[in-house]
């Protein structure tokens, strides 16, 4: 790859590129196209350069549990990131489009690290891309809230983001002290990012809820749409239970009070009602953590995975 640009680069004398124009953000891009790094493409190989990703599995931990847990937290971020990214080219204002794209990008970054860790610990020669693009529906481990389709309704998207980021922040804060160095490091970065996401969502819900009659109506409808999916966030899977007991993971049941408090506060200030709706139930004792998803996931994956599946191993 890069044969054409490589030739032109080596033919350029160093003095021609030495002068640096600090106002030209594109200069460093054009100067460095000549080498063989597969930049800007998927498949940039996080694993071989991430110092922490290859850390040993903490003592007394079943590697299969750690893999499953990294997939849970990684898939939450990956799938929610994809849903949020659907707003690109669809947002009500350019600023909100940029904001939502930035939030999606942060979550995608968290997902890459967690999937890279899962792939490494699994030890089957797969990488983060294999896990993102070549797993089928039942192999994903995210909660239903992450895949919830907002129908490109802004009130719905903000309600989902508030619930998701409030819950994820509570988990990440507790993972700061994880005995797994990757989970602790991902949490260290993620806490700052997700705090910002939660703040963004809370501000918007205030504006919408305490805004016009129409924005109030739409915000309330959004809250109603996501509320049935709240209960699943606090259900403890077998793997989470074991890892929480061993100081590696977090029991999601332990964050229920904190999450409920924050949501109640925001909704109250936004003059919105806490919905009294029945939670979505389990099917044969299974839900997202066990690989049982709604019919929406197939459509989502068809889009998320289409490029990788049509052009396996492609780089540019």
């Amino acid at each position, binding site marked *: 790859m890069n044969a054409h640009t490589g030739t032109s680069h080596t033919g350029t004398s160093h003095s021609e590129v030495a002068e640096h124009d600090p106002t030209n953000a594109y200069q460093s891009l054009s100067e460095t196209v000549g080498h063989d790094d597969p930049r800007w493409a998927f498949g940039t190989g996080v694993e071989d*350069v991430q110092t922490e990703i290859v850390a040993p599995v903490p003592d007394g931990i079943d590697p299969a549990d750690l893999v499953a847990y990294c997939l849970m937290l990684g898939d939450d971020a990956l799938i929610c990131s994809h849903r949020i990214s659907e707003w690109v080219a669809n947002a009500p204002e350019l600023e909100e489009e940029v904001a939502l794209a930035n939030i999606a990008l942060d979550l995608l970054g968290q997902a890459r690290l967690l999937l890279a860790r899962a792939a490494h610990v699994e030890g089957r020669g797969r990488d983060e891309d294999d896990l993102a693009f070549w797993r089928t529906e039942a192999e994903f481990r995210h909660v239903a809230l992450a895949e919830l389709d907002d129908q490109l309704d802004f009130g719905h998207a903000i309600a989902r983001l508030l619930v998701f980021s409030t819950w994820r922040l509570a988990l990440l*804060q507790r993972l700061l002290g994880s005995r797994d160095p990757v989970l602790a490091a991902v949490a260290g*970065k993620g806490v700052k990012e997700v705090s*910002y996401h939660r703040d963004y969502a809370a501000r918007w819900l205030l504006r919408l809820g305490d805004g016009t009659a129409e924005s109030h109506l739409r915000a309330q409808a959004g809250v109603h749409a996501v509320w049935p999916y709240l209960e699943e966030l606090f259900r403890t899977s077998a793997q989470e239970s074991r890892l929480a007991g061993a100081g590696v993971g977090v029991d999601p049941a332990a964050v229920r009070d904190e999450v409920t408090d924050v949501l109640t506060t925001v909704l109250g200030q936004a003059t919105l009602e806490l919905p009294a709706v029945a939670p979505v139930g389990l099917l044969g004792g299974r839900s997202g953590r066990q690989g049982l998803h709604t019919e929406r996931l197939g459509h989502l994956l068809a889009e998320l995975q289409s490029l990788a599946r049509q052009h396996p191993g492609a780089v540019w």
Partner: protein
Amino acid sequence: MTGRPGPGASGRPDPVAVVAEVVDPEMPMLTLADLGVVREVRQDGDDDTVTVTITPTYSGCPAIDAMRADLRTRLNEAGYPRVTVHTVLSPPWSTDWISERGLRALAEHGIAPPARTVRVGAEPGRAAARSGPVALTLTAPPAAVRCPRCGAAATEELSRFGPTACTALRRCRSCREPFEHMKDI
């Protein structure tokens, strides 16, 4: 590469000095060192091998791959044929890692620099150990960001997120110019 110092040739610049000149791909007025993302530059055994350790600003920062490539290219050009760029996540980067020179360079190029955060009981650049949940801001934060063009204190936030992962968008109420503000994290 004719005319460049070859592997093992004497007179190669110090790899630390080479790395010190590599700039951020999205904010080229800042070197990576001034941005505070370079954690270590190490010359190994045979002297031909240089290992650079960097840390991302944000988990999903797309510029990290460009940084890796730029570091490798510059070191190769300086006569170090074997370059490894490691990425570490911990301790996490914060705007407190930006050098004083970096803060000045941002301001000179129209980007309002981040405020220095005061964290009790934490090393500079390290996330403070928090006992409770992160404060939830439900009112507008104090606008302490000065306009980098005219210096006016009256500026307003246009968007919490800007064109790169690390910036927000603001506008000056005095000169009316919009500008970027490096988010305080």
